[in-house]
């Protein structure tokens, strides 16, 4: 036994390593505790963009529903989420009982922002509860191209990417994001500010991910799987195919994405 222990001791420093990282997960804001209705709404959303939601980690935000006196049972909602292929990885805005339920399910409690959750657009309607597929929480970037800054303050810093952004890669910029190369289908680029793509945009592009509604997306050829500004989005099916192969800009007007040719 002692030799075993000794062996353990010599290896102990090499068995683990801590690396600083951030974790990305969309937030699901609940406005009701009607499980069946939530499930239905989720299924609808997922059908629109199955790739987007597939196996996605998710943070459950119950602060809104609690305000409306519709405290939901965490076990119930976690069940529904897992059933449809989503992974709840955190809860925020829960009351004491909900936090206890979460703990029992090994779902971490996000206390940092529990008090006043950082939803910038107050007038978000019920409909758009899942409309924020990619509000950056802490992010995990599968294949980081850019290491995101963890400073929460808005920054004007611009991130410049010169290589192609390939399928499976995610980029998060805390300011503006400029990409000189193509963005492949299956790639995801996100910025708190504007996004410029000086090539073909085939993946997902999400600008203004912290709620900046005047953020814009620019690209030379729009074939995106999804475009989103401040949580409002359009998927490829909804895009007018006429505008492909032309430089366009995308901006938000009264919660609708406007796609406009740049002459």
């Amino acid at each position: 036994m002692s030799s075993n222990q000794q062996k353990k001791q010599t290896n102990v420093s090499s068995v683990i390593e801590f690396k600083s990282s951030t974790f990305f997960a969309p937030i699901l804001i609940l406005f009701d505790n009607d499980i069946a209705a939530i499930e239905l709404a989720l299924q609808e959303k997922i059908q629109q963009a199955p790739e987007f939601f597939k196996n996605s980690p998710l943070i459950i935000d119950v602060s809104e529903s609690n305000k409306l006196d519709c405290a939901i049972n965490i076990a119930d909602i976690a069940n529904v989420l897992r059933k449809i292929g989503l992974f709840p990885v955190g809860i925020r805005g829960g009351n004491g009982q909900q936090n206890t339920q979460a703990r029992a399910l090994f779902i971490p409690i996000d206390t940092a922002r529990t008090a006043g959750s950082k939803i910038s657009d107050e007038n978000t309607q019920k409909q758009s509860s899942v409309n924020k597929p990619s509000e950056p929480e802490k992010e995990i970037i599968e294949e980081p191209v850019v290491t995101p800054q963890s400073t929460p303050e808005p920054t004007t810093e611009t991130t410049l990417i010169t290589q192609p952004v390939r399928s499976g890669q995610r980029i998060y910029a805390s300011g503006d994001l400029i990409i000189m190369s193509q963005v492949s289908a299956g790639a995801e680029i996100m910025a708190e500010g504007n996004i410029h793509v000086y090539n073909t945009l085939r993946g997902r592009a999400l600008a203004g991910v912290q709620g900046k509604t005047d953020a814009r997306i620019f690209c030379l050829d729009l074939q995106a799987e999804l475009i989103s500004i401040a949580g409002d989005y359009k998927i490829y099916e909804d895009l007018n195919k006429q505008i492909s192969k032309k430089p366009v800009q995308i901006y938000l007007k009264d919660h609708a994405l406007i796609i406009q040719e740049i002459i």
Partner: protein
Amino acid sequence: MARIIVVTSGKGGVGKTTTSAAIAMGLAKKGHKTAIIDFDVGLRNLDLIMGCERRVVYDFINVINGEASISQALIRDKNCNLLYILPASQTRDKDALSKEGVGRVLEELSQEFKYIVCDSPAGIEKGANLALYYADDAFVVTNPEISSVRDSDRMLGLLSSKSRRAERNEEPIKEYLLLTRYDPSRVKSGEMLALDDVQEILSLQLLGIVPESKSVLTASNAGIPVILDEKSEAGQAYEDIVARYLGEERPHRFIDGKRGFLKMLFGGRS
């Protein structure tokens, strides 16, 4: 120092092992001492294609675990004495591979060899990740179909972010496209993507197009890399690929049916 080439694809069955065997043989025939490593632990078939399956004593995992030395495990090719094969284990599982172990083996091989060709398994799991981790060059093998192109794109993402070069912020891995099993008649009929379609998505330096060819199967059944079948189109395509990789400029062939058709016409006359 050796140049480490990973032959990779993401998608399975697109021709990685065929390609690995062919280019390793091609490099060796050009006078470069070359080693080829099978990273497909549990599913080895490189040794079949190289025709050395009956001479396997030790394998890659044995070397990693220190149960055999590299020179004990390396098998000298029967057709070319500058080519050596490090076979995969059929009996272990992938977890036997470790980043550190693979690094040690590559380091040692680098002392002696000019090129090391790593035949990657399909997928984006551990084996594929380890095969690409130490690479200097990547041969991205792609078939002209959308799922293969998508997987190659995914692989390119991993190459540019999950390799040692990426981690160390060194010059990125050089990426080359090899479009294999290309069938111009099926491209014409719209069943397959054309070269241009593939390039629109991947935009990579094209090293060569390998046409769909029966000689590939014949060669692999005989345990001889197809590049040694100099009469076959696939053999010639791989020969071009090796030459281009080594810096020679050669026009691309086998892109459309015309050439083959013309050759048929004029070849018959002369």
